[in-house]
């Protein structure tokens, strides 16, 4: 039997992740239960005050705003990405279209944000110039520095992250299944909802996970595009870290941010289970065989 080199191959990575991920995460978790030192850092005395400090209306407002921005931007992205990637996958020119999505995908986010500052800028920005020219408004509007602007720019920044995984899954989908469904009398909508969607769950999961997590913890967009009333958790963390130097509070907020993301991810993955998984769970619950899916597929093949 050959020597098992697995641990040897994995050792550098394991060491790196322990040193620079596991330990720092443990530090944040433990600091969140400690007493604040005046000049940054902590005093090693157990207290829950960093969590008690979160129990105030400002924090709740910021937390709610963070969820809202991430949720709205994700919905916007998926709503645009699904039809767009479907079109790309069915097109004759998919490689060219793919390139058109990869370019903004690789474009630096700071440049994307800068580009939108130009679109939203009050003094002869694109949108104001257009609306003034079209006569819709008679004096410039302040588009920047509010929550809606943050949502639009977040959706813009991460839209390619939603399109690419959806495109790769839809590209593998067997489109003749849709034609079969139509031949059997299903409407376009029914065929899409009951045949296409269940088959591209993997892509939807990846798209939502990428976009939601990125939107949730983003700092650059709310800090450049948002205003004082569109503060997100990351702005709060930055402020407490750099200005107030309250490390326990920074830590407790980071713990809450992590827990909120994890819960959102788990809820989503639960909602987005495949019919097979749901069937398996039902079978385990009721202890009854669920062969209907396989039988339906068999009939489809015979037709």
């Amino acid at each position, binding site marked *: 039997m050959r020597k098992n080199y697995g641990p040897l191959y994995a050792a550098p990575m394991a060491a790196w992740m322990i040193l620079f991920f596991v330990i720092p995460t443990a530090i944040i978790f433990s600091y969140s239960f400690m007493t604040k030192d005046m000049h940054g850092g902590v005093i090693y005395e157990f207290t829950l005050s960093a969590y008690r400090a979160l129990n105030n209306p400002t924090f709740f407002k910021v937390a709610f705003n963070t969820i809202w921005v991430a949720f709205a931007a994700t919905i916007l992205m998926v709503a645009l990405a699904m039809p767009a990637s479907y079109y790309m996958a069915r097109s004759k020119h998919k490689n060219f279209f793919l390139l058109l999505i990869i370019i*903004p995908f690789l474009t630096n986010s700071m440049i994307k944000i800068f580009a939108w500052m130009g679109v939203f800028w009050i003094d002869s920005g694109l949108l104001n110039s257009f609306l003034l020219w079209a006569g819709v408004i008679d004096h410039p509007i302040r588009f920047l520095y509010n929550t809606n602007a943050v949502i639009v720019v977040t959706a813009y920044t991460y839209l390619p992250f939603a399109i690419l995984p959806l495109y790769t899954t839809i590209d593998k989908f067997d489109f003749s299944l849709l034609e079969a469904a139509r031949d059997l009398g299903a409407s376009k909508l029914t065929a899409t909802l009951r045949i296409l969607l269940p088959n591209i769950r993997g892509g939807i999961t990846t798209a939502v996970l990428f976009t939601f997590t990125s939107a949730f913890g983003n700092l650059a967009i709310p800090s450049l595009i948002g205003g004082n009333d569109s503060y997100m958790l990351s702005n709060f963390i930055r402020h407490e870290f750099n200005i107030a130097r309250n490390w326990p509070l920074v830590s407790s907020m980071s713990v809450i941010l992590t827990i909120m993301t994890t819960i959102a991810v788990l809820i989503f993955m639960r909602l987005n289970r495949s019919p097979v998984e749901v069937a398996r769970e039902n079978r385990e619950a009721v202890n009854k065989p669920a062969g209907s899916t396989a039988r339906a597929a068999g009939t489809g093949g015979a037709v």
Partner: protein
Amino acid sequence: MTGAVQSVLGKIKGIMNTGNKPTGKFSLSVFLVVLVFLYLPLAILILNSFNASKSMSWEGFSLRWYNELFFSPSWVSLWKTFGNSAVAALTSATAATVVGTLGAIGLYWYRFRAKKAIQIAAFMPMLIPEIIIGVSLAMLFASTKLPMSLFTVILAHTTFNIPFVLLVVMARLESFDFMIIEAAYDLGATEYQALSKVILPAVFPGIIAAFLIAVTLSLDDFVVAFFVAGPGGSTLPVYLESRLKLGIPPVINALSVVIIAGTVVLAFLSRNIVKYMFHSNK
């Protein structure tokens, strides 16, 4: 300018019409909306980089912003942070590619204790918000009295790059037949020979893709570098954020065009990274 736009639009329309597969009008129109949404802000930015005016209203063609960007002493600090970004990206991508590729081989082909735990620890950073990585590493460095510098940025970037390298290289390994390596062993190859002569050449496209993704992620990062960069170690996004808080200097249009040009070249080179990065195994 309008002529160019029209000819491009005409071309796109031509491409759309030649598709012979049945595609819905709805998905086509959403796709066009997406393209306009993605490219209009960038197009305006490119146009403005050649604008003679300091404001955004068009006052004629000029290269003054490019001249200022490359030759004015007031933008020397920008180029310094640009250099920092390049150094951080290349170093952290190299380190992450080496560590992550070896890790992927170990996790994919072997069974051993703690394998599951290592896998979770290595993939987790991808799922938690980046700001947590930045803050927690800043606290680690401060607690261990490691002074913040460009070096700490490199350590942090390597950390968030490793999961992506792991993902991409493991995806490549999935399409690879282990029998080939068994054959190498049967023919008397040592582990080192098997690694350097068989495994690495076979996963090489995956390694290149992983490296390119790591470079891109490092160049793109603002939030982690913001927390862990020390004096003189600022990266370009950190510098840009501090400048853009005060306004939108037209020189940044010129800088953006230079970077976008680089991105287009990179996009041509790395079209296949998508299939490794977003390949789904479920």
